[in-house]
């Protein structure tokens, strides 16, 4: 561009020179130069400007692509640049958003109640069916049979309860104990109420009602707590015992089964005649059965021991519960004891069954042993005679010689003879053996009988004891009820008696009162009359005295009121004087100093604190120098405004001479309204110097110096400095005017207050 300018200058110079020179040739040259120069220079100018503008725009866009802040700045300052950027670069990336961490909702724990409510019913039915099966299998005995069924049913109930959530109590025991406690509780508060009623009537001081009720309530609560703990203990013990007992019974049943099977198989093995290899499998099966039987017997034995331990524990718990001696717990204790008893009976019966089975098995095994022995003996003898013959000699008739057959027959005959002899011996010994066996049998029977009798006795004793306790419980309840009714009757009788006594007393007193002498009555009448007269006289005297006092006070207060009125008038006069001095301001001069008038006010209201305070609140400048009037301030404002407009751009950062020039230029070129109504609330854009000045002009024109001062106070920078003095003067004037108006208002108020209504 510089070169273009230079070229332009050159061409201009040459033109000038050419104009002065004269030869045609240079003119032509000049012309060609000038025309060429001008054409090329114009094109060059256009090209250069296009290049510059394009370069600038391209550079801006590239930099904006690289620096998002710059892009934002440009978009803010140049209108429609955001659209250009959008076309060229795509939309600006939004600022990163911070996601709030999601609140993790608490996991809902589903209640188990639905689960075990549904499953309770079918399980109960299942267990009852299972319980009924042992009934069919067990040996029928009349008394144990009933208890067995009951026990099984109860045990089934308990099992169904403990099979799920342990906190659900056994239905039988729970219902039994739920009914008595409410009945017991109902009985106790009724008795307590009755007791408190009784306490009111006699004159003897007893414990207060509240205390008794509180103690009873405490006792009840303690009992209730004990009861609940007790019942829970019992339930737990019952549950565990029932489980273990059932396990033991099951184990015993299994042992029974094993023994029976073993016995059966043994018998089969004895009696069946099978080929050797099948015999060996049979023996192996038999061995397995034997091992099975021993194992199950051991298991059953262990289970029985465990069950017996549990039963003892349960007995211990029941004894402990009995020691606590709570009346309400008795039925539950009874029920627990019944359960215990039935379980013991069950266990015993099963154990006896197993024992009989075992004895049977022993007999069978002994028989099998004997048979085996005889077979072995026979085999040995056979082998000794005919050593080369095998075990199954039935199929070998062709191989036997005459001698062998003879010796075999001879041996057979000899054997028969021997057998006959033994038989005869045996017959002889038979009787002796039978006698001794019978003796032994008798002894054993006796022993077994004794054992059975003792156990049956024990069971019966337990049963009777339980029944007795039940009966005792019932009678106790009946007694309690009877006692309650008796107490109630007693309380009712007491109230009736008291009522009668009171009636009699009333009668006696009334008769005594009516016997008084009629003469005494007259005397009292006369005395009463004189007293009345005296009273009325005193009243009159008091009234007269009060009226006198009232009149005196009225006169005094009148004097005071007059004094007050005078003072108020004085104050008002002095305030008026002050007001008048305020009006003495000339157009551009301040008023007279207000000191004299203020002094007068201070003298006129020496005792009035409020007025004194106000008088001292006047600014010292106004006292010494006086204040400017509103009109002068208004006139001055226009000069201020002009100046403030001119230096609107100047502040701490911008205060060079160039800025002053710019500020003047702005003031010349910017047009705003001469006066504009200020809004109720100033927003940020209203804080512009020009706007503020027009608002202030408007408020001044409408007489609101205060608002104008406030608005001028919002100016900033050099404009503010320029308006500083004016602002100070405006403040002084406003302060003084405020104080003076307060004083005059006060004086008026005081004057009104002291005026007497006609």
């Amino acid at each position, binding site marked *: 561009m510089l070169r273009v300018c230079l070229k332009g200058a050159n061409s201009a110079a040459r033109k000038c020179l050419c104009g002065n020179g004269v030869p045609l040739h240079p003119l032509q040259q000049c012309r060609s130069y000038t025309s060429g120069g001008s054409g090329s220079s114009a094109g060059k100018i256009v090209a250069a400007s296009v290049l510059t503008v394009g370069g600038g725009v391209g550079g801006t866009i590239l930099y904006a692509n690289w620096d998002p802040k710059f892009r934002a700045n440009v978009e803010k300052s140049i209108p429609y640049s955001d659209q250009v950027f959008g076309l060229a670069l795509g939309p600006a990336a939004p600022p990163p958003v911070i996601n709030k961490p999601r609140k993790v909702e608490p996991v809902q724990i589903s209640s188990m109640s639905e689960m075990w409510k549904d499953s309770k019913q079918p399980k109960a039915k299942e267990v009852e069916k299972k319980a009924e099966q042992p009934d069919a299998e067990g040996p029928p005995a009349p008394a144990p049979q009933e208890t067995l069924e009951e026990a099984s049913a109860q045990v089934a109930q308990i099992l169904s309860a403990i099979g799920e959530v342990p906190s659900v109590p056994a239905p039988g025991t729970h219902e039994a104990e739920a009914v008595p406690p409410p009945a017991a509780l109902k009985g106790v508060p009724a008795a307590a109420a009755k007791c408190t009623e009784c306490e009111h009537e006699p004159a003897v001081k007893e414990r207060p009602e509240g205390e008794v009720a509180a103690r009873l309530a405490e006792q009840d609560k303690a009992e209730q707590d004990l009861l609940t703990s007790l019942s829970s203990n019992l339930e737990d013990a019952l549950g565990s015992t029932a489980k273990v007992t059932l396990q033991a019974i099951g184990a015993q049943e299994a042992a029974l089964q094993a023994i029976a099977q073993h016995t059966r198989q043994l018998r089969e093995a004895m009696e069946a005649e099978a080929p050797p290899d099948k015999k060996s499998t049979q023996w192996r099966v038999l061995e397995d059965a034997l091992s099975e039987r021993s194992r199950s017997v051991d298991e059953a034995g262990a289970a029985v021991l465990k069950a017996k331990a549990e039963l003892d524990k349960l007995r211990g718990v029941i004894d402990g519960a009995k020691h606590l001696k709570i009346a309400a717990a008795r039925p539950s204790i009874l029920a627990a004891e019944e359960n215990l008893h039935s379980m013991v009976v069950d266990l015993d019966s099963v154990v006896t069954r197993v024992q009989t089975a075992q004895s049977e098995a022993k007999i069978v095994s002994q028989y099998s042993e004997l048979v085996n022995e005889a077979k072995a003996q026979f085999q040995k003898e056979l082998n000794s005679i005919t050593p080369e013959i095998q075990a199954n000699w039935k199929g070998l008739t062709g191989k036997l010689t005459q001698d062998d057959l003879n010796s075999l027959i001879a041996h057979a005959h000899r054997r028969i003879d021997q057998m006959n002899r033994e038989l005869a011996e045996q017959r002889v010994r038979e009787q002796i053996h039978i006698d001794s066996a019978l003796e032994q049998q008798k002894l054993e029977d006796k022993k077994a009988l004794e054992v059975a009798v003792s156990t049956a006795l024990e069971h019966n004793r337990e049963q009777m004891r339980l029944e007795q306790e039940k009966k005792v419980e019932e009678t106790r309840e009946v007694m309690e009820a009877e006692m309650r009714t008796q107490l109630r009757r007693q309380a009712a009788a007491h109230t009736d008696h008291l009522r009668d006594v009171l009636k009699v007393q009333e009668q006696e007193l009334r008769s005594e009162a009516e016997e008084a002498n009629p003469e005494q009555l007259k005397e009292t009448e006369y005395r009463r009359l004189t007293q009345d007269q005296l009273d009325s006289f005193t009243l009159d005297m008091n009234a007269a005295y009060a009226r006198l006092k009232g009149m005196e006070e009225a006169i005094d207060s009148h004097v005071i009121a007059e004094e007050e009125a005078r003072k108020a008038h004085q104050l008002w006069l002095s305030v008026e004087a002050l007001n008048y001095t305020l009006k003495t301001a000339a157009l551009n001069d301040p008023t007279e100093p207000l000191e004299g008038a203020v002094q007068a006010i201070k003298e006129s209201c020496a005792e009035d604190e409020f007025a004194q305070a106000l008088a001292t609140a006047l600014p010292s400048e106004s006292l010494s120098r006086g204040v400017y009037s509103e009109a002068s301030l208004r006139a001055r404002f226009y*000069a201020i405004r002009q100046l403030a407009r001119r230096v609107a751009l100047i502040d701490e950062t911008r*205060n060079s*001479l160039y800025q*002053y020039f710019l500020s003047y230029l702005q003031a010349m070129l910017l047009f705003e309204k001469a006066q504009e109504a200020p809004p109720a609330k100033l927003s940020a854009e209203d804080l512009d110097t020009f706007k503020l000045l027009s608002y202030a002009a408007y408020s001044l024109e409408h007489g609101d110096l205060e608002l104008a001062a406030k608005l001028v106070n919002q100016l900033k920078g050099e404009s503010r*400095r*320029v308006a500083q*003095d004016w602002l100070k003067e405006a403040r002084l004037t406003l302060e003084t005017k405020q104080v003076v108006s307060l004083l005059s208002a006060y004086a008026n108020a005081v004057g009104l207050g002291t005026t007497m209504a006609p």
Partner: protein
Amino acid sequence: MSEKELGKKLDRCLADSAVKLGAGLGLGIVFSVVFFKRHTWPVAFGLGMGLGMAYTNCQNDLRAPYLIQRNIKVIAKRQ
């Protein structure tokens, strides 16, 4: 009166610039005549210097209220 201050300053400015320009012109003429064989450039130089000095003086005068004195401590507010 604070509003009369600016006027006073500007008056001072003008007076000062008149003086400085005149002095520059004078000195320029003297130097041009005495040392530089009646060229015009010393005159222009002198005038320029005078104008520059007047400008700076005026600017400093107008800026004076905004200068921070050394005996005044400035406390910056931490952002």
